[in-house]
């Protein structure tokens, strides 16, 4: 028993030491309307506490281009926005590094901003991990997401069906209770009349 416990703890420790890789999370795609602001969120999961030397790094690769440019870097507790990048005066850091949030906000998006944004977060000593990509798609009018209307129609119809069935059974239950209480009162009145008749009939005899 003890040997099994020892073996399990050794295996778990072994797995845990391999697990000290940071996982970065962003959206898969972002659909925005031209002219609006978009918030690109980036957070990470790490087995270590959030250190003071946590860094966030955003880079951008336009659609069709082969290279990506660095547009934002957060290090040593201060955000740095690339002064010559395509977003130099439209980018704002809206994240909270203490809460592992390295999100940026891009104002007034245009069709030229279509592309892939990459977020790379490092939490020393946890520096091994893959960056995460989010695709930005700019539309004149944002289309409805696939399946939203489908689910809405199905949900409403099935909900109405359940509601109708519930109301039907409730009405039946209420009517049955009403009939039952009426018949009880009728029965009591009938018994009362018989009793008084018998008493009157008794003394006269």
């Amino acid at each position, binding site marked *: 028993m003890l040997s099994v416990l020892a073996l399990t703890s050794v295996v778990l420790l072994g797995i845990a030491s391999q697990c000290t890789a940071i996982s970065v999370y962003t959206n898969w795609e972002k659909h925005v309307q031209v002219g609006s602001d978009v918030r690109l969120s980036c957070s990470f999961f790490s087995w270590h506490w959030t250190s003071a030397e946590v860094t966030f790094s955003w880079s951008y690769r336009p659609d069709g281009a082969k290279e990506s440019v660095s547009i934002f870097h957060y290090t040593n507790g201060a955000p740095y926005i690339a002064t010559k990048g395509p977003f130099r005066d439209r980018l704002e850091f809206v994240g909270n590094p203490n809460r592992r949030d390295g999100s940026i906000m891009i104002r007034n998006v245009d069709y030229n901003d279509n592309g892939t944004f990459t977020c790379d977060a490092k939490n020393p000593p946890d520096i091994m991990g893959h960056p995460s990509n989010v695709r930005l798609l700019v539309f004149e009018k944002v*289309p409805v997401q*696939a*399946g939203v*209307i489908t689910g809405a*129609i*199905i949900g409403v*119809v*099935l909900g109405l069906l359940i509601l109708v069935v519930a109301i039907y059974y409730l009405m039946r239950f209420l009517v049955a209770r009403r009939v039952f209480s009426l018949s009880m009162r009728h029965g009591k009145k009938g018994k009362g009349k018989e009793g008084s008749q018998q008493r009157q009939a008794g003394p006269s005899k």
Partner: protein
Amino acid sequence: MLAILFATLVLHLTDLIILFVSTCANAWRIHGADSYDLWYRCAQSNGGYTCKGTGEEEWLQAVQALMVLATIFSLTSFIIFLCQLFTLVKGGRFFFTAVFQILASLFVMSGAIIYTVMSPKWESDSDSYGYAFVLAWLAFPLTLVSGLIYIVLRKKE
């Protein structure tokens, strides 16, 4: 009596199978070897298939919802029929079964009509409607007839 019951059951099962195939098969429109619609847009290129999910048009999502609802209602009608077969009083009509089956036929009719009206024009001569579309239009009169039979059917001794 038993023959009528058996025939009604077979008709209902046929309806169910047709509705299932029409909803799940991705072949409402055919363009040569490519198949489009209801759930995917699959195009053939270099010997392999590349499929892209559909559903950004509102009318297509409505057709999806109506077909799924028709299948659910037909299935519910079948289960209610089996229940009512054992619990109905002698001489009673299969009212609930008929209601659900007729609702299913209405949904399939709406779905088929919306698809017929809103589907894009033919791009080339090799475009045509697929078998799932034909099955959907076939399911409408079959479910309607099945529902009407349930209204007329009475439980005998």
